[in-house]
C-alpha cells in the first residue's frame, strides 16, 4: 500500500490525511505512510461529527496545528492555518499537488446531490454544492467537481467552513482567501474564479437556510438579524439574482494562480 516514492516529492508532509482505508490501494497511497496511528481522529471529528474532542496525541511529524484543531476552532483560525500552510509551500508544483491532495480527500457527494439546483453558477468547471443545516444550527457542506483543481479548492473551503455557524460562513470575505495566496493572477471577478463563486454560493444558500429556519421557528427574528441583513448584501455578487451589486475588486483565488510569491 505504500508507494512512498510519491511522498518524496512533497516539500512538507500532507496536512490533511485520512485514516479511513482508501477506496483502493492505488488511489490514495500518498497518505498511508505518514499516517500516525494515534492521531487522525481529530480530522474525522471535524468532518463527521462535532461531538468528539481533539486527540492529545498530535503527531509530531505534522508541523501544522490543524490536525488537532478542536471543536470550536474558529473559522478565522482555520483560515489562518490554511494560509500559512500554503505560504510555506514555496515550490509552485507543491501547491498544485497539495491542492490535488485536498481534492482526493474531499468527501464524496451522492449522485442525488449532483443536480442543477446544486450547481454553482458562473464556474467554467462544474461544481456541485450540497448544503445542510444540522441540528445544532451549524452549516454542513459537501461538494464535488469535474475538475481536480476545483475539487481541491472546494475541499479547502469545506475544511474551513464545514461545521461553522452561519455567521462564520458569512464572515469569510474575498480578501481573507486572497491572503492564502494559492495564487492571484488577476484580481477581478471572472468566470474562472471558482473560489469566489463557490464561496458566494455557500453564503447565499446559508442565508436561505437561515431564513427558512427562522420562518420555521415562527418568524422570530434571530438575535443577529441586522448582521444577517448586512451580510446578505455581501452575498449579492454576480451570477446571482440581486438588486445590489457588491464590489469585488479583490477577487478570491481564481482558478489560475501565482506560484511565484
Amino acid at each position: 500500500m505504500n508507494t512512498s516514492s510519491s511522498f518524496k516529492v512533497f516539500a512538507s508532509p500532507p496536512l490533511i490525511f485520512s485514516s479511513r482505508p482508501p477506496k483502493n490501494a492505488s488511489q490514495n497511497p500518498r497518505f498511508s505512510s505518514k499516517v500516525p496511528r494515534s492521531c487522525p481522529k481529530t480530522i474525522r471529528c471535524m468532518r463527521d461529527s462535532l461531538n468528539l474532542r481533539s486527540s492529545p496525541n498530535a503527531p509530531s511529524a505534522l508541523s501544522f496545528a490543524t490536525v488537532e484543531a478542536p471543536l470550536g476552532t474558529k473559522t478565522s483560525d482555520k483560515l489562518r492555518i490554511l494560509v500559512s500552510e500554503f505560504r510555506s509551500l514555496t515550490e509552485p508544483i507543491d501547491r498544485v499537488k497539495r491542492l490535488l491532495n485536498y481534492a482526493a480527500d474531499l468527501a464524496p457527494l451522492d449522485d442525488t446531490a449532483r443536480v442543477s439546483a446544486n450547481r454553482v453558477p458562473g464556474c467554467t468547471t462544474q461544481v456541485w454544492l450540497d448544503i445542510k443545516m444540522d441540528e445544532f444550527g451549524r452549516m454542513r457542506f459537501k461538494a464535488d467537481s469535474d475538475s481536480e483543481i476545483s475539487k481541491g479548492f472546494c475541499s479547502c473551503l469545506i475544511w474551513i467552513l464545514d461545521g461553522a455557524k452561519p455567521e462564520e460562513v458569512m464572515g469569510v470575505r474575498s480578501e481573507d482567501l486572497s491572503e492564502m495566496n494559492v495564487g492571484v493572477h488577476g484580481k477581478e471577478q471572472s468566470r474562472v474564479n471558482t473560489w469566489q463563486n463557490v464561496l458566494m454560493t455557500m453564503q447565499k444558500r446559508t442565508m436561505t437556510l437561515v431564513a427558512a429556519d427562522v420562518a420555521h421557528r415562527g418568524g422570530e427574528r434571530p438575535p443577529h438579524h441586522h448582521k444577517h441583513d448586512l451580510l446578505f448584501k455581501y452575498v449579492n455578487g454576480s451570477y446571482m439574482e440581486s438588486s445590489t451589486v457588491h464590489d469585488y475588486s479583490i477577487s478570491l483565488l481564481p482558478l489560475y494562480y501565482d506560484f511565484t510569491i
Partner: protein
Amino acid sequence: MEGVAMKLPSFKSLAPNAISIGHRSFSRVRRSSSLSVFSAASSSATVATNSESVSLGHRVRKDFRILHQEVNGSKLVYLDSAATSQKPSVVLEALQNYYEFYNSNVHRGIHYLSAKATDEFELARKKVARFINASDSKEIVFTRNATEAINLVAYSWGLLNLKPGDEVILTVAEHHSCIVPWQLVSEKTGAVLKYVMLNEDEVPDVDKLREMLSPKTKLVAVHHVSNVLASCLPIEEIVVCAHNVGAKVLVDACQSVPHMVVDVQKLNADFLVASSHKMCGPTGIGFLYGRSDLLQSMPPFLGGGEMISDVFLDHSTYAEPPSRFEAGTPAIGEAIALGAAIDYLSEIGMPKIHEYEVELGKYLYEKLSSLPDVRIYGPRPSESVHRGALCSFNVEGLHPTDLATFLDQQHGVAIRSGHHCAQPLHRYLGVNASARASLYFYNTKEDVDSFVVALADTVSFFNSFK
C-alpha cells in the same frame, strides 16, 4: 503599398516630433519591404527552420514585443489567438500617434486637427472596404466588435423584416454572439430559429441546411470558420441556395478575415461581420459589411449624434448609411489602428499568411493527435479539407481547465479552456468544456513543439495522481 503603409505626407508638418516617428515607421516599412523581397526569393513561407528559409512566424516575431516575455518562469507560448490576437508595433504606434498628434473629434470640426482625424478615420474605413473587397466604403459600418455588428443586424434589419413564422437558420456550432441576438429578436417578432446539426465529419451539415431552406426562411446566419471545430463552411454555395429562396445571409467572419482572403463580392453575402482585435487590431472596434441597398433600407439601431440628419423635439430624420448606424463619437484611434493592422497584414499578404497557417495548423493537428487519449474536435485535415489553425480538444480523464492551469503555471503555455462561447456545440458533442490551442502567423513550429511537450508533461502529472 508603401504610400498606404505610411502616414499621410502632410502629417509630418503637424509637429516637429512627428517627423522622427514618421521616420521610424518609414524605416520599418523599408525593412519589411526588403523582407518581403527576401520571402519572394525563398519560394514560399515554409515551416522549416533551417537557415536557408526562415519561416513567416520567425520573421514577424520581432514586431510583437509582447511575445518576448516569460510567464511563471517559462517563455511565453501564446496559443490563444482565436480569443484575441497580438498587435504588431506599427499598430500600437498608429494608435499612439493619433492621440499624440491629431486627436480630434471626427465629422464635426472645421479645424485642422479635426479634418486630419476625419481623413484618417475615413481612410481606415476605405482600407477595411478594400481588405474585404467591398464595392464601396459606405458599406462598412464601424461597430464596437462583431457581436455588436450582429446585434445591429438583428435589431435593425431583424425587427423590421422578421414576421411570426419566419425562419432563421443557424448552426449548432455558432458562437453565442450569433445565437443570442437571434433568440432575443425571435422572441420579439415570433420568428423561429432552426439549427443545422453536424455531420459525421463534425462539420455543419450543408446538405441538411439546403433541405431546411424554404420560402419561410428569411435569414441564414453562419460562421465562416468555426472557432471550435476549425471547419470552413462553403459560404458561396450557401449564399446561392439561400438567395434562391429569398433569404439573406449573414456571415460571421471573425475567424476567417484575420487568416485568409475574404472577398465579399465573391461570397456575395448580404452581411458580414468581423472584429478588429482578432486581426492584429485593437479591441473596441469591429465592423459590419452590409450591401448598400440593404443598409439603405434599415432603420437606426442606436440613436444619438452623428446618425441624424435633423433633430426636432418630436421627431428626427436620419443620416445615410454608414453614419446612420454609427451613433456618437466612434473609436477613432482604434479605427485608425485597425487600418494600420490591415496595412501590416496586406504587406505580408493574406495568401501567404493563409498558406503558412494551413501548414502550421496541420502540424499542430498531427502532433496533438499523436498523443494518446487526445480527442480533437472538428474535421480531419485532408487534401480537400483545410482546417483553420486551431485545435479544440479534450484529454481523457482530465478537465480542460486543470490542463490549461497547469500548462500556464508550469510551462508558460497560454491556451483557452471552457466552452469558447459555443455551449450548444459542446452540449452537442457531449462535453462540458474543451481546451483550445489556436495559432496565428506569428506562431512557429517551436511553439507547437513546446506545447505538445508541455501537454504530455501535464497529462503525466495528473495521471500520477490517479
